[in-house]
């Protein structure tokens, strides 16, 4: 099978699997992943090699678009809109999951660089799965409002935590023998480089973009700037995610009409995400499943504890209701798309342990996607948000 035939096939199968998933109240992304696993090497082995070969390009493009979209949240207006409570809780629950998971893994003698990566991935949650449950039970109320605000923002914090952790983790991995100072310097260099790159690209996008008067050109121009940013980030070994997020953040804050850059991408991005998630599913290595047992369980359990602790402190600091401090973290359990995207990046960066990281996250994702919605429902019931 040649590459184009394969992509066409993936698009069509992905489309109909998402349609079927809708019937059983499952988000489209979950359907893409399942299809990926099924046609991947582990089950049907239907995926031609040449498609696996281009998956690097697809995932960089998809992740840069996702980071760009999520980056537009970093504006003063968004922060005012969601309010203090949501801000505190979302930052602290993401950091909490990171901190507790990293600490736990370190205690169990997992190498530092791996612990950091797992911790960062723990910060992410799955907005679609959570919204699905809220929709399904037609839940309404103050608790739901807070939950949705936190869900909307926590991927943004998650991506930042992940990018920074990955920079540190890479420095540790490559310079195992050298000092702490050089690790910190190396990581700082990568982070500052990303900000510089994203910042310059953002200024360009914003100022030259004002000269563009029609939609077709705007789409071409926006994609051009995003790809150049992503390409330069890869070339200079700085973070693609951070660069693209910062690019978006700069544009949003510089330009009143910046929404045009994001709206124009809305028509083209879904086919790319579809291919990306199917390929992500296909990267799962079932043979590694046997090896993940211990780390997987530690990750599963301590991510939840971290989310709970972070939410609790966030709620206390911002004087939220006791319902929020007690039950909101239950609503944050599902994990899917972003986590797998992060795991794929890690897989690329750490050739020796990457497969293990990815397979662990993929397996725990399956667990979270199965039990997560149940806990969301419990949280909604406990806080009386379901008016049957």
């Amino acid at each position, binding site marked *: 099978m040649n590459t184009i035939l394969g992509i066409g096939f993936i698009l069509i199968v992905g*489309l109909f699997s*998402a*349609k079927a*998933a*809708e019937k059983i109240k499952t*988000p*489209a*992304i979950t359907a893409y992943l399942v299809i990926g696993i099924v046609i991947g090497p582990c089950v049907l082995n239907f995926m031609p090699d040449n498609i696996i070969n281009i998956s690097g390009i697809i995932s960089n493009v998809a992740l840069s*678009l*996702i980071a760009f*979209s*999520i980056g*537009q*949240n970093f504006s003063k*207006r*968004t922060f005012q*809109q*969601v309010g203090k409570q949501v801000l505190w809780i979302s930052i602290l629950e993401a950091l909490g999951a990171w901190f507790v998971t990293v600490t736990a893994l370190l205690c169990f003698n997992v190498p530092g660089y791996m612990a950091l990566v797992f911790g960062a991935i723990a910060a992410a949650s*799955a*907005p*679609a799965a959570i*919204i*699905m449950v*809220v*929709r399904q039970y*037609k839940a309404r109320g103050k608790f*739901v*409002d807070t939950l*949705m*605000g936190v*869900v*909307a*923002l926590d*991927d*943004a914090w998650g991506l930042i935590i992940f990018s920074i952790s990955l920079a540190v983790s890479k420095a540790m991995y490559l310079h195992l023998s050298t000092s702490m100072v050089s690790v910190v310097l190396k990581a700082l260099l990568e982070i500052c480089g990303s900000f510089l790159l994203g910042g310059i690209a953002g200024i360009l996008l914003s100022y030259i973009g004002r000269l*563009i*008067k*029609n*939609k077709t050109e*705007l789409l071409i121009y926006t994609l051009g700037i995003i790809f150049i940013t992503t390409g330069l980030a890869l070339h200079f070994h700085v973070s693609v995610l951070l660069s693209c997020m910062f690019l978006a953040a700069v544009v949003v804050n510089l330009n009143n*009409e910046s*929404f*045009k850059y*994001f*709206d124009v991408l809305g028509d083209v*991005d*879904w086919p790319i*995400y579809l291919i990306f998630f199917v390929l992500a599913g296909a990267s799962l290595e079932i043979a590694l499943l046997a090896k993940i047992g211990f780390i997987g369980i530690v990750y599963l359990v301590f991510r939840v504890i971290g989310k709970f602790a972070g939410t609790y402190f966030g709620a206390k600091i911002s004087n939220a209701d006791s319902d929020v401090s007690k039950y909101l973290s239950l609503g944050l359990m599902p994990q*899917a*798309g*972003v986590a797998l995207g992060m795991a794929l990046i890690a897989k690329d960066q750490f050739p020796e342990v990457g497969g293990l990281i990815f397979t662990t996250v993929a397996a725990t994702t399956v667990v979270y996607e199965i039990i997560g919605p149940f806990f969301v429902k419990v949280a909604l019931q406990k806080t009386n948000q379901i008016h049957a």
Partner: protein
Amino acid sequence: MQVKDIMQTKVISVTRGTNLAQLLGLFKDFHSFPVVPVVDENQVLIGIVRMRNLFDVFKPHHQEILMRNPLSMLSHEPTDIFDIDIEEGMGFLVIVADIMDQKIVKVKESQSLKDAYDLMQLHSRDAIPVVNAEKQLVGIISIFDILMQIFREKGVA
């Protein structure tokens, strides 16, 4: 020729506190929902309500922010407006401030027709509000207004 020479000056505008029932009442005899400017007490334009914003009544929670995360999309479907329960009270509970779009595409009254036309093409709008130098709402201009003006100039209409 400037925007102010051909814009519509009779415009139905609302305030932040206008509730959904009042808003819909204004247009109940219409068959299309126009661009409705939202103004503050000094007539300064602070938002717009378009038909798409009415759909947010069906999916209320932080919709705008969630939409920015591509991964929060549930399916390829547009909003299913037929399978959602809305309470009767919502006509009074939901106010314009909840659903208005703060991402406003607007034009100054002194700008040229070409500026207005380009802006509407770029953002795929059929009509946009017009403001003066003090950011106050002074009118609305539509693509059809511009087209009719050109046809008139050329003696076609």
